[in-house]
Every structure is written in C-alpha cells, then in structure tokens.
C-alpha cells in the first residue's frame, strides 16, 4: 500500500488528536505543525511506526517571522520515508524570548550539526544537544545574524545611498 498524505494525516490525528494542526500540502508535500513540547514525540512516532518509517532526516532549519508575536521562530524538519519514498515537512513554532526546543540528536545523528547551524544563525536553544555552540560563525559573535532585525547592509552607511531605487 502506498503511503499517502491522507494516511499520514489520519495516523497523526489518531495519535496526537488536536495538537497537530494546520495540515497543508504546498506543492504536494504534507506540511503540519505541532506544539514545541511535542516535537520529539512526533518525530519518535514517525520514526518508530513501521507503516510510516520516517527514518531519514533530510533537512532542519529555522525561519524567523518577526510579526508573528509569540511564535516568532519556526523550526522546520524535512523528513523522508525512504522505503515508501514520501517526504513530509514538520514545523514547530517558538517565541523568541525563550527559544527552547528539544534536540533531535538522540534520534538522528545528522541533526547534530544542523541544530548547531540553526542555533548559530537563529539562536534556537536546542535542549539536550551534546555540543551546542556556533559552527559557521566565530565563537565571539554575540547576535544571531539570520534574524530579520539584521538587515543585509549596514543602515548607517552613507556611501551607498541611492535615491532612485531606494536601496
């Protein structure tokens, strides 16, 4: 039996009830979100169930939505069920004051560096990570550069002022 998005949705709703919300299928990939306390439980469930078997972590990253009060940071997991060849996307939202999310390193060794990268650029604090420190930026850096409050170009520069195109 081919693994369909409908079936995954049904299994998740059976197990977690209303906590899993916002099911969407942008460009065919099942996308849903869960409360951040449940992220490991959901990942574990998707990993353990033989019918689902999402045992390959393709990608992990964060997105910053500054206008989304109380849920500014989204941690996005891309999982792949290699036996059925189905991909899903799973999101966890957290507020920016206490960006604590449980680490998935115990389940996926691949998550180690991806979580470090996410911490490095967005400051998501992965609880239970064995070695949560900066990876691509210098250790002395005291901000999280991919957050939207840091514009690409320094705003105080005057030499790049361009009235015509508003850069």
């Amino acid at each position, binding site marked *: 039996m081919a693994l369909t998005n409908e079936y995954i949705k049904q299994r998740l709703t059976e197990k977690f009830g209303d906590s899993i919300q916002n099911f969407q299928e*942008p*460009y065919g*990939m099942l*996308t849903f979100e869960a409360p951040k306390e449940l992220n490991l439980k959901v990942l574990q469930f998707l990993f353990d169930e033989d019918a689902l078997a999402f*045992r*390959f*972590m*393709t*990608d992990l*990253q964060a*997105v*910053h939505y500054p206008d989304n009060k109380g849920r500014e940071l989204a941690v*996005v997991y*891309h999982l792949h069920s*290699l036996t059925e*060849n189905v*991909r899903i*996307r799973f999101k966890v939202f957290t507020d920016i004051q206490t960006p604590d999310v449980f680490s998935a390193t115990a389940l*996926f*060794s*691949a998550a*180690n*560096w*991806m979580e470090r*990268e996410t911490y490095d*650029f967005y400051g998501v604090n992965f609880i239970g990570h064995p070695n949560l420190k*900066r*990876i*691509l*930026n*210098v250790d002395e850096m005291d901000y999280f*550069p*991919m957050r939207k409050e840091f514009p*690409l*170009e320094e705003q105080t520069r005057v030499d790049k002022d361009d009235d015509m*195109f508003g850069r």
Partner: protein
Amino acid sequence: MSDHHIKLPEGSIEKQTTTLNLGPTHPATHGVFQNILELDGERIISAEQTVGYIHRAFEKIAERRPLYQITPLTDRLNYCSAPINNMGWHLTCEKLLGVKTPKRVDYLRIIIMELARISDHLICNSIVGVDTGAYTGFLYVMQYRELIYEIYEEICGSRLTTNIGRIGGFERNFTNTAFEKIEKFLKEYPKVLQEFENLFTRNRIFMERTIGCGPISAERALNYGFTGPNLRAAGVDYDVRVHTPYSSYEEFDFEIPVGSTGDCYDRYLVRNQEMWQSLRIIEQAMRKLSQFKGKEAEVFHADVPEYYLPEKKDVYTKMEALIWHFKIIMGEIDMPAGEVYQSVEGGNGELGFYLITDGGRTPYRLHFRRPCFIYYQAYEELTKGSMLSDAIIVMSSLNLIAGEMDA
C-alpha cells in the same frame, strides 16, 4: 606499559597523547577546514572538526536578491560540479512559479548535469589516488576534465563558476561546436576511464590502502544523513534521480551502483561506476535530441516572458521586450507566495533548496541542504582508531568541498 614509552614524572601535567591540527590550510585537506586530531602514537583517538572558514552568508545574501541573481551564489557551493547546483536552483524556481520546460531543454540540462557529475567524480577519485600515493592518475585525467570545461565554456562562456542556464531554459542554444565537443568527449572518454580503472581498481597498493578504511554501515550512514555516492557505497540504493525524478530523468535507462561496506574502496568503485552510467545517460540524451526536427530542434527555453530575458535585438525594437527586460533586470517581478523543497542529485549527494516566498520580489527564506556539511559530522566515527594517513584518505574519498560545507 612497555619501555618504549616515555615515563612521565609523578603528577606531571604532560599528556601521553599528541594533539595535531590538520588544517585549516593543510595541503591534504583539499579545502579550508580544520581537524583537531588527538593522536596516540599514530592512532586517532578523537577528531574534532571546525568548519566555517569560508562562510559567505549566502542564505542571508539571497534574502535581498531576485531569483535570477541567486544562481551565481549556487555556483559557489560545490564548485566541482557547479552546473548541477545551477540547474537545481532553476528547477526550484520553476517549481515555485509553475513553469513547464520543453522536453528539449530537459535533455540539454541532463547532458550538462551528467557532464558535471563526471567532472566531480573524476576529481574526487583521482584525489583519492593522490592521497594514496598515485599522482599519475590525477595528472592524466585532468586533461579530460579540461574537455568538460571547454564544453561549459562553449555553452555559457565560463568554466568553473558557470552560472549556466536561466529560469525556463538556457541563455542560448547549444552551438554545433558544443555538440561536436560533447561527441568528441563521448568518444574519447571511455578509453581514458578504462585506463584510469586499470591503474587503480586492481592495484595492490591502492587496494591495501583503501579496503577497510573508513567503513560505515548502511544504518549509521542513513542516521548520519548520508546521501549520494557515500550512501550508495554503504549499500543503500537511494538516488534522487530515480526516487524523485526531475528534468525527465524517468525516461532514461541507467543503473544505480551500490557497494556493501561503505569503505573508501567502495566509494571509489561506486563513483567510477557512476561515471559509466553518466556516459550512458549522455548518449541516450544525445540520441533523443537528434529526434527533434525543424522548429522543435531550435527550442532552448520555455515561453515565460516574466522570468526569461528577451533577446537583445527585441529589446531595442519591441516595447514589450523592453518592459520585461527592465523589470527583470531591476528585480521588479513579484513572486507568488509559497513554500518549495526541491532537490537534485548533486556530485556528492542530495542537494536541496528550501525556498519560502511571501509574495515579494526576493525570497523570504532560502536554505541550502548541503550534502557534505551533513555527512562531514560522521568523520570522527569514520576515523576513530585508524591511522593518521587513513584519516586523510577518508577525507578525500568523502568528497568534502569547503565551499559547499560553509555556504
């Protein structure tokens, strides 16, 4: 403890082990990254990797650029197979925008991508040769990578960072010279690859150095997020070209080579076998291309005026063309809001693009899934307990590209 060891005085703070910095600019790392190795004699007891020396903030830069200006950023990820990255990015944009490319464009893209795969694997395998002490193979195949670069040059004008193709197709049609060069490559390369294999595959020294060196089980490899030749060498037949076909790969007949132990020798064999398969794919694509006749044989891009630059002579004579030209160049085209993940089989694994747009002119968020960043974490597990010289072979046979790792 034998008498050969230095006896340290009681309460000494000296260590019995040696710390060795391999990198960031060590000639054997083939790129700028650092390994801090803890050695007991010549045996590795732990390894800590430091990456990020050439981090260029591509994801941040991409948030300020219209789609077509992001293509040159993707060149600089895995610069050994830049065209694959370019095509991956175009496919992502096309998926977001709902652009359907003509069949001929798909086949042309496949030719370019497979040539890039050959050049990538060629470098990787010959570098493994260099690190095991065989310089000849490297120097010998380098002239055939040159042939591939000449083909790129004929098509897009540049060699290493190609910026090849546009959203919807190619910037210009392949010239006859380009096709001649591809034919020449197809004719000459099999002999060279055969000779390269004769030099290495059953070479006693090479086998002694690589068999059993840096092995990984299929289960661990999957857990570590391995993809590409490194995963296939461990025995998992996962290939994006087959599992999530893009650019009409489903019409092509080729095999996925797999290994069994996931050691350096298997990785070498898988890469070599993939080069043969790539040649097969290119031959099939050339045959398919020759079936296009008349007007169809001139198609090299989809009809998407919003994203594909009009011809220069039209810009000077037609108002429509001038408008589109201006809008595209100034980045004034609004994109549909959406969320796309598209991946391609890159030179060293699944290269993914996760693009979020909010309806503006630039991406809201763009994330590159860079295969070698993800599998480099396994380096400590692969090298623990082995000799220092093995660690270097493992590094080169994993095909680590600093540009891709650091994005």
